[in-house]
Structure formats: C-alpha cells, structure tokens
C-alpha cells in the first residue's frame, strides 16, 4: 500500500516506540488471572504514556484526535508487534468513554475521563438472566429515595467485572408504558455496599465474565447519565462504540496473526498440498474482505454516510471469519489440538486453536448475536416485513 509521508512517518514512529516498549513473552505469563491483570494495567499505562492508548478520543486528549488512517496505522503496528490486546481497559476506553463523550454531563466527563487514563476500569452491566437479546426486558429495579437510587437485581456476562472499579448499569425505574421507556442509565461504584461479583467458568477454562448481584445498592442521583427513563437512548451510544473501531482493530489483528496458519502449514510439511493452499488462500481473502469492510464502515462513518445495518454487516463478517480462521487452525493442528494446552487469557488469535475456536463464539453471541444482526440486516436494510410483535402463550 502506498501511503502519504505523514502516515509513513507515524508508522515508523509507532514501530520504533513498540520496538523499545512492547512487552515480550506476555503470552506465557497470561496463564493466570493475577499476572494477566497486572500486565494489562502496566501495558495500558505504557500506551497512555506513549500516546497510543486512545487514538479514537477527541484531540484535546493526549494521544487522541487521530484520523481513521492514523488509527489504522497504529492498530496495524500493535498487531504486527503482537502486543496484548487491551481487554481490561476495553470497556473503559470504548464503551464508557463513548457514553461520556456523547451523553455525559460536563461534570461526569471531568470526573471520569481523566481517571480512565489513570487506569480506572469499567465494566458493562446490561445483560440479565432473562434479558439477553431482548435487553429491554431487563428487570433490575432502581427506586428513587431522596438523593439516591436503591438498586436490587442481578446482572450477568459482565466482562472483567471482577477487576472493575466502576460499572455502566442499566436499571428499570418504571414498569409503565413500553419497556424501553422505563430504563435508566446509572454509573455504579463496584465497591459500593451490596455489590457481589462472582466470576463464571467458561468452556475454554477462562473466567472472562461474571455475575453481579445487587442488594440494596445505593447510587447517588448525580451518577445518572441522561434523564430518568432515557437510559435506552444512552445505552445506544454505549453499544455503538463497539461496532466500528473495535472491529477494525480486531480485523487487523486477525490479519496480523495469519502467520500462525502459515507456520502450521510449514510445520506439517503441507506447502505443496493444493487443498490446504486453497483453503488458506480462501481464508486470507475472507480476512482481507473483513479488513476492507471494517475500513469502509469507518470511512463512511467519518463521512456521515453510514446506513442502518452497516454495522451489522461488519460484525457478522468479522465473527464468521474469526470462526473460519480458528477452524482452519484446529483442522491443520490435528490431534495435537485435542490435548489441553495452557490458554492465554483475553486473546482471540493465540494459536491454541481449540481455545481460539471456543473463544470465537464471543463475537457471534455478544454485542447483539449473529441472529439479531441478521434480523437488523433483513428488516432495516433489506426492508423485509417484520413479524407481528405479540406472542401469547397458550
């Protein structure tokens, strides 16, 4: 790719910085959660110091105000240097930050955004046992009592909640009218009285997400984002943050990890196997498509030309291709992959193919499942008629 002088300059700058600063051998140390969390905090702090942690934030922030092309260069280089993905600070720098930038009060911005750069971490408390795809059905109840909301209920699948300082919390403040109308958006301190966090064991041996139990938790009224009953609209800002920038980063990381398949082909002496080469060539091209559509989406977003459903196209492309990638690795790895090997916490393209395969479900299920995205594409983009809404149990 030919690129302008400035971008090439930035690339050299980032590369030079990474040569000196990128952590090495981190995969081996990511086999227990304490080491993982510690190293994640250190790496985040280093990136903040280097000015590469939040290129998507506005320009008044150190390291912010980067154009799409610049962000792309930074993420390409982070992927190329095989740095750890910023999982622990992911919700903070994307979800929380987007929510504050778009809907937060000036006070909230001033209070929380600088803290994020200092390493304060956020988790997202949206889903509940009976409110998954149908998020608006959430039942966690908040009652206003003077200057506080008193909250009772249960959240689930909250990523990294065991390490989080704060929580983006959706609660029900009213049961009248349409279910979206009674939702309110609160900012909760995870150390508040009445908050219990219980990590959930996952199929690949990780504990990436948690249950959060809320028992008479008091949250001051000034910790509300938007008005009471406006939480659904605010939540859209939170959710939208996930569907562009992140997918571009992840797409480039997946492309950057293609050498793992190449290595596997070489290791197995399959360099002349036409069938394997075809499957590899196909996968590479699918990954190139994934990067291209993620790029195009961001460019459209910058140009104000985003269409309803575009984000769903990007997400369903990435999540499917991620699955294809891990399946090709699992296949080429053969029986070796069926013996348990240590996992690397919080990485999607580790080369532990069974673990990568199991992890790839995160993207077909979380953030609006593949099926929900299909509904959006069909109904809102292709204008296929909606089904009648109500269902009465017989």
């Amino acid at each position, binding site marked *: *790719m*030919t690129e302008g002088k400035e971008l090439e300059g930035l690339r050299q700058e980032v590369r030079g910085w990474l040569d000196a600063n990128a952590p090495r051998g981190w995969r081996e140390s990511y086999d227990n959660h304490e080491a993982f969390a510690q190293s994640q905090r250190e790496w985040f702090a280093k990136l903040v110091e280097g000015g590469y942690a939040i290129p998507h934030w506005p320009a008044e922030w150190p390291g912010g105000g980067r154009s799409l092309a610049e962000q792309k260069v930074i993420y390409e280089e982070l992927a190329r240097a095989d740095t750890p993905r910023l999982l622990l600070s992911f919700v903070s720098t994307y979800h929380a930050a987007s929510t504050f930038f778009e809907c937060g009060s000036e006070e909230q911005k001033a209070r929380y955004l600088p803290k994020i750069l200092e390493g304060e971490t956020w988790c997202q408390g949206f889903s509940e046992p009976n409110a998954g795809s149908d998020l608006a059905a959430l039942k966690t109840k908040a009652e206003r009592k003077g200057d506080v909301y008193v909250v009772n209920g249960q959240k689930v699948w909250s990523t990294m909640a065991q390490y989080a300082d704060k929580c983006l919390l959706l609660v029900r403040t009213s049961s009248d009218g349409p279910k979206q109308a009674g939702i309110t958006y609160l900012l909760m301190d995870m150390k508040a009285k009445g908050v219990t966090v219980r990590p959930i064991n996952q199929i690949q041996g990780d504990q990436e997400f948690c249950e959060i139990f809320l028992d008479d938790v008091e949250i001051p009224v000034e910790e509300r984002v938007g008005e009471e009953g406006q939480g659904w609209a605010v939540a859209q800002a939170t959710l939208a943050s996930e569907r562009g920038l992140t997918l571009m980063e992840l797409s480039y990381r997946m492309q950057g990890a*293609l*050498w793992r*398949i*190449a*290595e596997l*082909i*070489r290791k197995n002496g399959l*360099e002349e196997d*036409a069938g*394997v*080469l*075809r*499957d*590899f*060539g*196909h996968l*590479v*091209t*699918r990954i*190139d*498509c*994934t990067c*291209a*559509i993620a*790029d*195009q989406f961001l460019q459209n977003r910058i140009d104000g030309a985003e269409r309803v459903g575009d984000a*769903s*196209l990007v997400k*369903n*492309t990435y999540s*499917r291709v991620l699955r294809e990638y891990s399946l090709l690795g699992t296949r080429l790895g053969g029986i070796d992959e069926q013996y348990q090997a240590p996992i690397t916490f919080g990485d999607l393209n580790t080369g532990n193919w069974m673990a990568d395969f199991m992890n790839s479900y995160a993207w077909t299920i979380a953030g609006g499942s593949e*099926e929900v*995205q*299909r*509904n959006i*594409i*069909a*109904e809102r*983009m*292709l*204008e*296929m*008629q*909606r*089904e009648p809404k109500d269902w009465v149990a017989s």
Partner: protein
Amino acid sequence: MIELSELRDAAQKAFPADELIPDRDESWKLIAEMGWLMMPLPEESGGLGLGRDAVTAINLELGRVLSSAPLVPALLTVQAIGASESLVDRDSWIERTCSGEYVALNLLPGDIALADAGTLSGTLPAVPDADMASHVLVFAKGLSALVPLDAPSISVSERKLWDESRRLFDITLDNCAVDESLMLARDDASHDIANRLHGELQLALAADCLGGANAALDMTVEYLRTRKQFSRPLAMFQALKHRCADLKTHIAATEALLWSRAVDADASVTDLGALKALAADVYRFVTEEAIQLHGGIGLTDEHQCHLFMKRAMLNLSLGGSGDELKERAGRQALETYSA
C-alpha cells in the same frame, strides 16, 4: 475529475435495471457513445484518464443488467494497444478502438505456438463476440500482436452457452503469419502487458459478479416482499430473512474488497485473482439461493432468475477456476506471512 457516483448514475440511466440482457449491438453503440471505451487510457493519448475504480464501477453496473456487450475484453485490448511501443499507427488504432472498433481477446488461456517461420498456430478459447470483432489480440511466447479475423488461416466457431447473456467463440490459428506492423510488443514488454491484462480481467470479472449478485438479491427480496403464502408476505418468515441477510453480508464484504483493490496499485495479479474467485463464489451462492427462494417460478424459462445463475456459473470458469486462483493466493500468503 468525474465522481464515481456520477458515473454509476449515468450507467444506471443508460442501462436501466428492469431491462436485462439489453440488445448487444445497441448496447455497444451506446457504450461507445458514452465514451466508456476510452476510460482507462491516459488523457495525452486521447483517453479519459480515469482510474481502475471508474472502470470497476461501469463493469459492476453492466453486470447488474447482464450486459451482453463485450466491454470487458474491449477495455483490456484498448489498454494493450495504448501500452504498445511498436504498433504502427498506434494513435489511429486508439481512435478506432475507442470509438467502437472491437479487438477481441480470449478469456481463458490459449495454447498458441510460434513456429520458426514466425507463424502462429493453436486455439484461443472463450473469445467473447468474435463475430463483431475486426481483430483478435494474440499472446504467444515472446510476442503479442493483433491478428485480423478475416485472414484465411483463421477459423472462428461458436458453441452455444447456457449463459444466454453472452456469446463465446473459439478462434483457431493455422500457421497464421504475423504482420510486423500489427506487432504490439515483444519479450518482457509483451509479458508485462499480458500480466497486466490478466489482473485487470480478474478485477473486471469480480465487478461483473458483484453487480449481478446485487441485482439477483434485490430481485429475490422484492419477490419475497410481495409474494404471499399463509396469509402473509414470505419476507416475514425469519428463516428466509436470515438467508437473505447472509447473502447481503457476503456481497457487502466482498464488494468492500473490490473497491479497496480497485484503488490499490500494489494489488498483485494473485490478489485480484483471489478477489475474483471469491466474488464468483458469492455470485454463485446468491443466484443458487435466488432460484430456491423463488420456488417453482424460479425454474421457468420465462422468469429472470436463471439468467443470473447461468452467468454466475460461467463466471466461475472465466479468467481461471477458483481452485487455481485460491491455490495461488495460498502460495503467495505462505510467503507473505512468516513468523
């Protein structure tokens, strides 16, 4: 600078979506009038100096209406002529071809042998619309030249395709003498032109595939939205929605790569071939589903569904098979991606 969107609008006006397989000769006239044949040539040699993305836009739009005019090979031969250093009267050749004289090209590899006496023999398979061509561009080992189709040592035969939107001919050369004044290039220069044309062909076919795939999906969704069974539009059934959404996702992702490779001067022939292979897979998948989702009507000759499916199937083969192109892409990636 012409905007891509303006170009696409103009193409959609000239070739409206509801008129599939427009008459070939009329289309050809229109294409020449629109100036599309001169798109890729630089302005100093009488062209419009438009980039590959402009050519891609037109090829995509013409794929949408299953165009039967040989714009794809014509644009390639115009570029070859423009790149020639040795063609006598090159400027007049440029003028002739840009205004509608058609120089044909084979879309599958030929087996042309060069005898010591300097004559050419062998077959050029899959040459579109040879019946309306004055010459064919022939690549042989170490040379490329234009060969007039009325030469006695040349025979042209057509075999009827399933794809009724296209006509392909086999051209056989039997000790055909090469006219020195029609020589395009020799050795490395000839090889470079062949290579470049091969890449452009892949890109053009990919655009044709995605134009057609878009049209076939639009048609299918429209059908499902209007056809009622079980007292509701078929489009309401989620099983069908999800299939359409997946088709849309495949098209969108592949189209994103199409536009990105169209402006990437560094994309290799292998990259463009891999794109074409994927685009043809997508086209096949979309049109295969289109017939299924139309039910019985999709199997009738009268309905338009099959026209897209047949073109998609032909596109799988043109420019090389997917197996071959993907294998090459895999080999290239093995070099690119090392630890």
